[in-house]
């Protein structure tokens, strides 16, 4: 059944192809249902292919499905085809699975939006591009998907483009990603120059002839792409701004799937990283620092989604830390569990935002747990998962990452552990401010039959759990977030399902750790203690009050002023340079030259036309003058 793999990306593409011309006619909610059905069908196909792949022997779990030659120039041949192996299928499975749930959720969430069909058109296109990214059998096709998700991300961040902040946030995401994409492109050129191919299998087979400096360059350039896409330092500010998009978009693109593309890429090129340990170290350290900066920044945010955004930055940092350490399984493991609990948290926050009628400030919330039991409980599970409270999934995946970080160098572990404490703390802060404590909003009377969302003329709020479209995904994701850790339990080689599954792809280059069972238990206990301390601190500090300015320094609220610093250093200088070229170089030098030539031409035309007097005698004179010059010339030539 593996040959059915082509359906996995094609089904969402078909959804896009249907919705793009017909979406408006199909309308609300039919367009949403079609989109959801397409992605769910894609998920079903993925599961079938997954199972089929599982039935092969581990060494034979790699299939290439060539479609056609995409383009060819000289000795360059770029094909379009799929690489079906455990890594790509793992990615495809969780992408389609989480996408299906978020599509379903969006039917409820976007119910009152006028652009409902357009939203699902973009969403399906995004899923297609994301699947091409992970399923492609060569770098160029992956880059196609990479750019595709980037453009969909742009469309969806700026979905409410009438709002200035949304429009500029979309632009910002695009520009930051451009910087990374430049690195990706340069890496592509270098890869082709060194190996003569773009196909993953061929490139990896020829790495022996490439030479370490080139490998380091390729790895770091690809990592630059990953830094942009996966919001690592210093290219992360766009992700916080990207929260202006609709919340399902934040959940799907800016938490669960697209932003993990960089991590996927690092795992995919594990043979290169293995041969370029210097580059791997850079990746690990950038990841660790990103985890810490993201976690600290999340502690001081007041926007319910901004907290989650910086949390995502931090978690992506963990994944990069794992990938840079050579712990690819841990990276993928964290990516999976993170997809579950972060999607859950975002969807939960979307549910809260709906209930609060578009107010996103957690300082204006409080005491919602009783009014919104499903949202409250599932959010709690999400919090415990991300915090790493045993036995929720985050405990296992983050524990795996930290253990491997220790094996590389304890310094990385320390940064990771501190960030882990902060993670438990800032999510606790958010939970308490939103769901516990006193109600810092005015309650309105529930008027029967009147249920006007988004109307300014209401005299208070009446929060409640959302419709089943939105609740069902919460429940499913909460279950996955709680139990997701069991796909890769430590302690016994029989339980590390994920590691054994991914072994054919990454096994050869995996970091080998030599911890005894006792040491592993020690790590587990320490992790659990850190998580529980964070939870406890959050509870003591934030249970009673919402105002603790000392714990929310402006430095952290501004995310270490990195965004502003980049704005001052890079953006303003480039703007100044652009202004200079526009006003001086362009309008004076270039336009001046062009206009000058034009005036000169016109001027000489005006002068020359005066020769045309209309008198035959003058014309004859001109003819004779030409003759005289010509004869004089040939006579001079004749003498020589």
């Amino acid at each position, binding site marked *: 059944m593996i040959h059915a793999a082509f359906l996995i990306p094609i089904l969402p593409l078909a959804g896009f192809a249907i919705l793009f011309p017909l979406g408006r006619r199909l309308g609300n909610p039919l367009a949403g249902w079609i989109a959801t059905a397409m992605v769910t069908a894609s998920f079903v196909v993925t599961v079938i292919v997954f199972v089929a792949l599982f039935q092969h022997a581990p060494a034979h779990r790699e299939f290439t499905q060539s479609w056609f030659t995409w383009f060819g120039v000289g000795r360059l041949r770029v094909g379009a085809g799929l690489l079906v192996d455990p890594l790509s299928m793992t990615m495809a499975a969780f992408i389609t699975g989480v996408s299906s749930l978020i599509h379903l959720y969006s039917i409820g969430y976007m119910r009152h939006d006028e652009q409902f069909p357009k939203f699902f058109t973009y969403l399906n296109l995004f899923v297609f591009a994301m699947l091409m990214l992970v399923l492609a059998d060569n770098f160029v096709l992956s880059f196609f998907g990479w750019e595709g998700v980037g453009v969909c991300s742009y469309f969806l961040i700026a979905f409410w483009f009438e709002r200035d902040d949304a429009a500029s946030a979309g632009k910002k995401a695009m520009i930051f990603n451009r910087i990374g994409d430049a690195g990706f492109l340069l890496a592509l050129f270098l890869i082709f120059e060194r190996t003569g191919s773009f196909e993953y299998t061929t490139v990896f087979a020829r790495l022996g002839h490439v030479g370490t400096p080139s490998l380091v360059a390729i790895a770091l350039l690809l990592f630059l792409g990953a830094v942009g896409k996966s919001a690592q330092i210093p290219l992360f500010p766009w992700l916080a701004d990207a929260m202006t998009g609709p919340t399902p978009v934040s959940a799907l693109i800016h938490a669960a799937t697209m932003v993990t593309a960089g991590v996927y890429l690092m795992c995919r090129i594990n043979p290169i990283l293995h041969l370029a340990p210097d580059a791997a170290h850079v990746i690990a350290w950038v990841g660790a620092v990103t985890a810490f900066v993201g976690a600290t920044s999340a502690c001081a945010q007041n926007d319910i989604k901004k907290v989650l955004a910086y949390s995502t930055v931090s978690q992506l940092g963990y994944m990069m830390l794992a990938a840079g350490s050579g712990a690819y399984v841990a990276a993928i493991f964290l990516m999976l569990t993170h997809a579950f609990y972060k999607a859950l948290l975002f969807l939960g926050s979307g549910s809260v935002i709906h209930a609060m009628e578009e107010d996103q400030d957690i300082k204006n919330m409080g005491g919602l747990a009783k009014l919104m039991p499903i949202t409250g409980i599932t959010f709690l599970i999400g919090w415990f998962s991300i915090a790493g409270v045993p036995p929720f999934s985050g405990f296992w995946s983050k524990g795996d990452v930290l253990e491997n970080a220790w094996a590389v160098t304890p310094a990385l572990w320390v940064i990771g552990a501190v960030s882990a404490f902060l993670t438990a703390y800032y999510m606790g802060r958010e939970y308490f401010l939103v769901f516990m404590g006193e109600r810092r909003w005015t309650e309105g009377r529930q008027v029967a039959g009147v249920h006007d969302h988004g109307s300014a003329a209401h005299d208070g709020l009446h929060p409640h759990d959302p419709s089943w479209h939105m609740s069902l995904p919460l429940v499913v994701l909460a279950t996955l977030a709680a139990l997701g850790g069991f796909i890769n339990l430590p302690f016994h080689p029989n339980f590390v399902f994920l590691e054994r599954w991914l072994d054919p792809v990454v096994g050869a280059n995996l970091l080998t750790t030599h911890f005894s069972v006792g040491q592993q238990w020690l790590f587990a206990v320490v992790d659990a203690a850190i998580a529980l301390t964070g939870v406890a601190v959050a509870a003591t500090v934030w249970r009673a009050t919402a105002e603790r300015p000392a714990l929310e320094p402006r430095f952290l609220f501004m995310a270490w002023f990195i965004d502003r610093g980049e704005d001052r250093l890079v953006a303003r200088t480039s703007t100044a340079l652009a202004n200079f070229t526009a006003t001086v170089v362009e309008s004076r030098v270039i336009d001046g030259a062009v206009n000058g030539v*034009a005036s000169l*031409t016109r001027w000489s*035309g005006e002068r020359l036309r005066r020769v045309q007097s209309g008198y035959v005698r003058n*014309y004859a004179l001109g003819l004779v*003058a030409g*003759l005289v010059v010509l*004869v004089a010339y040939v*006579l001079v*030539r004749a003498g020589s």
Partner: protein
Amino acid sequence: MTGSTAIVASVAAHLVAATGIVVPHIDYTAILPELILLGGMLLVVLVSALSPRPLPTEAYATATVGIATASLISSLVLWRDVTNHGPFTAVADAVNVDGFGVFFLVLISCILVVAPMLAAGHLRREGIEGCEYYVLALISGSGAMFMATANDLVLIFLALEILSIPLYILAGFDHRREGSGEAAMKYFVLGAFSSAIFVYGIALTYGATGSTNLAQIAAFLARNVVTSDGVLLGGLALLLVGFGFKVAAVPFHMWTPDVYQGSPTPATGFMASMAKAGGFAALLRVFVTTFPTLRSTWQPAIWVIAILTLVLGAVVALVQRDVKRMLAYSSINHAGFVLLGLEAATARGVAGSEFYLFAYSFLVLGTFAVVAAVGGRGDDAHGFERYRGLGRRQPVLAVAFSILLLAQAGAPFTTGFFAKFTVVAAAVSAHSYALAAVAMGSAAVAAYFYLRLVLVMFADVARPRPGVVATRAATSGAAAPAGRLDLAAVGFGGGATPGRAATLTAIRPTEVAEATAAAGMVGEATAKADGPLVVVSPWVATGIAICVATTLVFGVWPQPLVDFAHQATLIF
């Protein structure tokens, strides 16, 4: 038939033999295209003279198209002979039947097929009867053909005159036109002047080489090194002046704007294509095949002339306010491009020039045909204002005109693009980089004035603003179907209703009455279309369609034409 011809020929031979003149063997098939034109011309004159009633101009046009088609077919037969059996000379080595010559026979036949169609509508509109236009065109065409195939300087001179004299008459053909007589007179005087110079050039060349036969001159120059070559080079310079005058190369171009502007517009289109085809055919043949040994001398001269022609044509066209005058300068610019191929003096360059002339002939015929139609009755409304809003009133005509103009500017997917491309590429491959750069610069300048005309046609004029419409209203008045109104300017308020049109104020007082009389009709026409409708007769429409089709078909698929030009050069 053949028997009687043989008898006549033998009788003639005997008669001539009696006088002691040696009569050369005449291979009639070798000059059949020319003979068809001349014979057809005689038939047309005969029919015209014998017919009891004046025949409609369309009848003569049909006959001319038929004659030209027959000539085209016989030219193609010659082409087949030449490709199969190689080039040959005929009529005592005076006529050269080779690929190069036959290429021009085909081109000239094509011009003669299209030109009568374009003239028919014009002559009908202007109420000019008679067969003279067609007869003169056929004579001129036969002269151009002889020029293209001549292998002797004397024959070239004769052909030049056969080509030119009908053109002088055509320039003054419409005697009622104010500028026509002046144009004809100027053209004739200056043409005679340049012919004299040309003949003197032939004399000097004969003096230096002892022959007027091109092949013998070339052979002489190949055998002998002329130590004192002042006479030869002087002859060469004089020949160049004669040719330069014919093809309107700077500085021998000065007649062009006045003559092009003054001549009846279809005649302008005809002379622009025919004179350049014939003139360049002889110029290329004489310089490239007869005087290749003197290339180092004439190449710099051509270089300078080409640059002057390119630049002056483009730059002065820029400031013209009369479309015909602008196109006259634009044709000077085109001549500069053809000179590029001569300057390269390679097979590639000559092929490029041939391609250019082929493309140019159709472009210029079609362009002037549209100008003639837009010029309206009287053929005198050639200002830019006349074209304002044409794109909205008559989109098909405007689009056709735009295609022709864009092709002249060298826009891709037209023959104009490939024409410019081939000659510039030839210049580059001959290392004439500066010349190629100047040519492309001049094309950029030229694009401006072509595009300006296109822009004028398609610019939005849906709501004329009061005070700005004066000149436009003036031209609408001038072209009103009521008659020829020579209004200089008419104040015409924003609203285009007949009532308001009646408040016209003419600048020239004497014409107030006439203007007021026509006001009703002017207003009506203006109200409907914001300008006069251009009447395009089916004949003219067909002709323009052929020109546009050629431009587009060979623009998209130039290979056959490129191969034709290339092969013509190979045999030559």
